[in-house]
């Protein structure tokens, strides 16, 4: 639990202005971690040491699954002379998530530095930065930053005279939610249709173009220079114990000051809503909260007392941290409409590869539309819950789960509101 968050000094986001120019970034101590690592690559910072440092820092992926980043890196097989890649996932298509965007805009070199260190650690030859196509301006920011980094000698052949060669490319997505899933991201990078791949083989064995690949979130990689600068012990002590480090909270919805805020993990949800984000707008009361992007289970207002934004606390409360993109809903929110809109999104974005998701998402949307328009019957609610169990865990990727969870948890947690919208099935005798 973080008590002195008011005095927290941001690490990822600059306190003022942007650091898109290399010189500005270097002035704040940027690229120092990279220089240190490459200078000591035979002694302190061997590849194994970098991986271990990130592993012991306890950095957990910021893309939603929350897997230990260092551990993920250690899954890469031994080099066999062929190409190896990092794919940096900036697809950010989960509704309610807009945190990578601020990194692209305000501190792109922090990510570039982290990605170079990561590529060094796992001996990758290239980093592909996958950014959603809607982020046109942010793609431009990234492209300029990468060009600058090449000019400054941080990328390309023989980086800083160390003999390490790393290239970085930006790839623009074409507007599909599914391409944020790691294996369909790889398909999309390869120029194919964004269909998730069957695992195994895992990306570390057969990833991009059949070569070992690690896929990391933009924010996760941006944390790497911080770990190396401050040391894993200090990083691990920051924020929640099992889920340390700074995190970008993307707060949206019915609050007075929506936006991206950087604080350590483990912030109390109430602090974030009522202090950081300035409280619910128009003095309304809180009704519900979606803590980590639209697929994470919704929490009722009476479920969030004492719950903090970290993986374990949220799991206990019955939800997940996801991407820490919090959507705050005030008391006027029509929860049926809200859920309908979410199911519409997943119906629209299902890639259509696996049967349960392809057909199930459409069915969920149709049922919720029926309830929304007042044509629903009580049995439809049970059917919806039944469908979520039919879909969950039966597909290649987690999109079916992501579509099923909000339905299941919103209906179970707000069943009275759904029942009130359904047609009456029991009538009193006159």
């Amino acid at each position, binding site marked *: 639990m973080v008590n002195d968050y008011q005095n927290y000094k941001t690490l990822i986001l600059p306190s003022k202005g942007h650091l898109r120019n290399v010189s500005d970034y270097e002035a704040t101590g940027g690229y120092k971690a990279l220089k240190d690592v490459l200078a000591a690559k035979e002694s302190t910072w061997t590849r194994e040491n970098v991986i271990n440092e990130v592993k012991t820092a306890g950095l957990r992926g910021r893309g939603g699954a929350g897997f230990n980043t260092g551990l993920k890196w250690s899954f890469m097989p031994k080099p066999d002379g062929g190409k190896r890649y990092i794919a940096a996932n900036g697809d950010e298509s989960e509704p309610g998530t807009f945190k990578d965007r601020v990194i692209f805009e305000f501190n792109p070199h922090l990510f570039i530095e982290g990605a170079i260190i990561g590529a060094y650690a796992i001996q990758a030859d290239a980093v592909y930065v996958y950014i959603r196509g809607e982020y046109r301006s942010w793609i431009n920011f990234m492209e300029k930053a990468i060009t600058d980094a090449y000019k400054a000698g941080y990328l390309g052949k023989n980086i800083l005279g160390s003999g390490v060669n790393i290239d970085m490319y930006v790839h623009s997505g074409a507007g599909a939610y599914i391409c944020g899933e790691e294996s369909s991201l790889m398909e999309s990078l390869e120029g194919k249709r964004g269909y998730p791949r069957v695992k195994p083989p895992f990306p570390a064995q057969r990833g991009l173009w059949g070569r070992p690949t690690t896929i990391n979130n933009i924010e996760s990689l941006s944390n790497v220079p911080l770990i190396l600068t401050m040391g894993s012990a200090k990083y691990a002590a920051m924020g929640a114990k099992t889920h340390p480090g700074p995190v970008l909270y993307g707060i949206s919805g019915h609050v007075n000051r929506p936006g991206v805020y950087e604080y350590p993990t483990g912030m109390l949800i109430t602090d974030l809503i009522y202090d950081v984000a300035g409280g619910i707008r128009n003095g309304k009361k809180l009704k519900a909260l979606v803590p980590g992007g639209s697929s994470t289970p919704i929490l009722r207002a009476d479920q969030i007392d004492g719950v903090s934004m970290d993986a374990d606390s949220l799991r206990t409360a019955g939800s997940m941290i996801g991407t820490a993109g919090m959507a705050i809903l005030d008391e006027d929110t029509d929860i049926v409409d809200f859920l309908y809109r979410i199911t519409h999104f997943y119906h629209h974005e299902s890639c259509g590869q696996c049967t349960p998701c*392809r057909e199930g998402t459409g*069915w969920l949307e149709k049922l919720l539309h029926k309830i929304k328009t007042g044509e629903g019957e009580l049995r439809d609610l049970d059917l919806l819950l039944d469908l979520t169990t039919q879909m969950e865990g039966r597909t290649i990727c987690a999109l079916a789960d992501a579509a099923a969870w909000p339905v299941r948890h919103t209906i179970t947690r707000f069943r009275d509101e759904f029942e009130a919208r359904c047609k009456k099935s029991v009538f009193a005798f006159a």
Partner: protein
Amino acid sequence: MPEIIIDNQRFTYDKPGKVLQFILDQGLDLPFFCYHPSLSIPANCRQCLVEIGTPVFDRATNSFKVDENGNKIVQFFPKLMTSCSQDMSDGMVVKTHATSDKVSRAQKDTLEFILLNHPLDCPICDQAGECPLQIQTYKYGPEGSRFEFKKVHKPKRIQLGPRVVLDAERCINCTRCVRFSEEISKTNQLTITARGDKNYPTTAPGSTFDDAYSLNTVDLCPVGALTQSDFRFKARVWEMNQTPSIDITNGKGTNVDLWVRDNLVLRVTPRFNPNVNDYWMPDPGREAYHLFNENRISRPEIKLDSELIKTSWNNAKETLAEIVEAHSPKVVFVLGSAYASVEENFAFKTFFANAGISNSAFVPHVISGSGDGFLITDDQAPNTKGCELIGLESLSEKSLSSLINKAKVIVILNEDIIGRGLASISDLDGKTLIYFGTNKTETAKAAQLIIPVTCIAEHAASYVNTEGRIQRSMPAKETMYTNRSLHPEMNAGRLDRFGTKFDNWRSDNNRVDAYPVWEFLSQLAPRLNQSVNWSDSSNLFDEIALSIPAFDGITYDRMDLEKGVVIQPAETEAKTI
């Protein structure tokens, strides 16, 4: 040997593989749609979900953990796994619908989902009767659907290419067709378009699906989404009977099935033979049914005042005998054909050799560069090697014309020399041409006497493909002189057995008045003082096997059981008589 336990039954396996394929190999049943043994595994239909558990391995003791009774402790995966993509491992425990309610529920659920947007138009769907979706829904599906909304509408009747029509609404997105064009025919002409429940396969804008193997996607399609343009709405599968045969449109000897109703071949589909064609066949072979049905010669014909008129079999035999008797054997030239079977060529050659005519040959039909290295060969004819093996002289086009010039009487077995451009009508001026043929070709029209013979769809006969593999056909169509219910090798479909002669699909119009070559020659034999008696191609082949060393030991039974017999090259050399 590693073992795997499926539904409490213990099996051992010797080579690694996928669980679904192993289950199918054991003759057990498990529903699936997207899996195909010759294609990659996308695991997208989610129909083959099973419960899978593996024994817990203890690295410390380097052995499997056991409970107090000494049984291996098995840990099940929390989710259901797709058996098609799951590799077998030693001690793996698999539970299918037979033992797991979870699995049978999942199968019901998946089928309910698949049927959600599938138009239930089975009564007018060509696939009905041989539709995996239909069969599996009856076996494993839910009793009804809980879906009460309008189905998603997608394009119908899209002509994907010259031969394939798509009904996108029926498509269940198994991607078999897309994978076929990527992995087998390698033309990459198909892809899935749109997203979610609006998905369907199509070609890139402006391109058509004109792959030389495009019709295999129709066989692969587990529903009626892809149909063959010229078979659409022609027949229900249960009205036809299915007879194994060989593709005669090139030298590969692709194994096929002929689908016959009312003695018309309605479609040709590939028959699995791992040694020749796997599951596939080229499109031209499917169009060969035109040869069997159309433009057939029925009853002998004789030329009177430059007009071909039908005549009786007796007259035809008498005329033929008179022509042979009236000419010295030296001026009679006998031309066999690589388009005819081993038996036909052998009977032809032997009969005329017995009559003293030793000028027998054939002209191979090889167009170099027309093959593709897969199932289409440069050799246009199905039996070039067979003709060589039985000792017909292989002629070049040039030597053929000199032989034609020298001859006064030319007896041709089913070789369209005019159509192929080997000779012109003027070359045949003043010569007597006797044509044994199946179809009314240009050469047949130039003949003085036409003897109709049965085609591959009407008799059992064997063909030697370019790789030296001898394979045989079975009679699929009745002629005037065969009877489906009496012939031991003819298949009878449901309606053949249970229909009546008043059924409107049944007539005698399509029975050709023709004999097999050997049968006709046997009838002719007494007239020319010969003693041959080949009433049956099986006996004829036994005679061939005895007299020609290359065929030594080969019988029809062996061809059937071994999916074709490879003729040893050494024997081939020993043979050349």
